[in-house]
C-alpha cells in the first residue's frame, strides 16, 4: 500500500476533528489518543500488520506509522 493511500485510510478510521499529516507528532495530536491509536491498530491488523497500541504510542510521528506500512 502506498503511503498516501495509507494516510488517507488512517485519517478515515480515526475520523479526527482536525486532519493530520505525515509530520504530525502523535503526542501533540489529541485525536491520536489511545482510542485513536487503537483504531489505527485496527487498520493495520486489517492489512496484516500486528503492532500494539503501545508500539504506536512509542513512535514520534504519523510518518513513523506509515513507515510500517511501506515496509510491507
Amino acid at each position, binding site marked *: 500500500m502506498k503511503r498516501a493511500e495509507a494516510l488517507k485510510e488512517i485519517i478515515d478510521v480515526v475520523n479526527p476533528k482536525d486532519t493530520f499529516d505525515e509530520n504530525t507528532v502523535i503526542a501533540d495530536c489529541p485525536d491520536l489518543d489511545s482510542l485513536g491509536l487503537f483504531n489505527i491498530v*485496527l487498520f493495520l491488523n486489517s492489512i496484516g500488520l500486528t503492532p500494539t497500541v503501545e508500539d504506536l504510542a512509542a513512535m514520534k510521528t504519523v510518518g513513523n506509522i506509515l513507515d510500517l506500512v511501506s515496509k510491507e
Partner: protein
Amino acid sequence: MKCIFHNVAIRSIIGGTGSEQYNASELVAPFVGQDQAERLVRSLGFKKLRAIPRPHTCGDLATDAALDLFKKENLTGNDFDACISVTQSPNYIVPANTFYYQEKLGLNKDCLFMDVIQGCAGYIYGIMQAAILIESKRIKRVLLLTGDTSSIAANLITAGLNGRTNVQVSNAAIFGDGASATILEFSEDTQPITCNIENFGKFHTVLEDDFCKAIPLRPLDIDSFKPNFLHIDGTELARFSMNEVRDNIKQTMELAEVTCDKLSYCISHQANRPMLKSLARSLQVPAEFIPFLSENTGNTSSASIPLAISENVSQLDKLKTAPTLMTGFGVGLCAGSAIVDLRKCNIYEPVYL
C-alpha cells in the same frame, strides 16, 4: 460447527429498542471531559444511544417486540413449537426468561424452551439452534428472542459508578439496549441457510464484567439496581476481529459456495464504526457491503443484527435482491456467520419501550 439447513425459512423479523435516546457525548462528558467525549463519539460512531427506562428489562422489550410481531403475522403463542431466548441479561437467574415469555406471550405448555447465554454472536447462535430444531422434523415453528440491556450509559445515569474505580467509562459511549423477535419455520420452498460458529474460550477475559463478573439481576426497585460495567481488551479484540472473524466469514461463503458479489450485504454485529470499516478492508470489500447502521442506537449485543435490519429496512433495498450474510462476533470470544435468504422475509420497523 458448520451446517447447511435446507428446509428452514426466516419468516419474519422485528427489532425493539429503548424509547429514551441519549446524546452519547453529553452522557460521557461528566466522566471524561467534553473534548474526550466528543473524540469518543467521532471515533466510535455512536452519536446517540437508545436505552429502555430502568427497571424494565430486555425480557420486557422482547415481549413487546414478539406481541407486535404476532399481531402483524396473525399468530398467537399457541402457534409455536419452541421458544429460544438468547440473552446475557435475563430477568432472573432462576427461572429462565422463556418461562417469563410463556406467561406474557401465551406459549403453550408443550412448547420446548431453550435459554442460551450468548452476546454479540447470539443472533447467529439462535438461528443455528432454531434451524437444528426445525430440521429435526419434530419442530415446525420457532420463536427466537434475543437481546440485552447493555446500556452502560443508562446504568451510569441510574446508579453512577456505585463506588467503583478503574471503570472503562468510554464503553458508555458504545452500548444501547435492544431486543428482537424472529420467527423461523419449516419450509420446502426456501433457499438454504448456511451457518458457521466458532468459539475461542481461551479469550474469555477479553470482554467481561470488570467487577463481579456476574450479570445484573432484575431489580425490585431502582434503589436495589446493581449496574454492570464491561471491561474490553481492545487490542486483543481487534486482532481477533481482523483475523478469526474475517476467516469465519470467508469459510461460511466457501461452504455456501458464494462470493460477496452474489450477496446483498454483510449485516454485521454493530460493534462500532471503525471495527466494521476495518473488517470490510480485511475482506477487501467496499465499506457499503458491511454497513454501520447503529449511529443513533448503539451496540445492542445479540439484538444488533436484527435491530439494524428492522431499523433500516427502508434503506437496505438489496435485502430483497440476493441472499444476505450475517456475522456476529465478540464476547466469549465467539465468531459466527450465517448466509440467509431474507427475500421472502417480512421485516417490520422496531417497537420502542
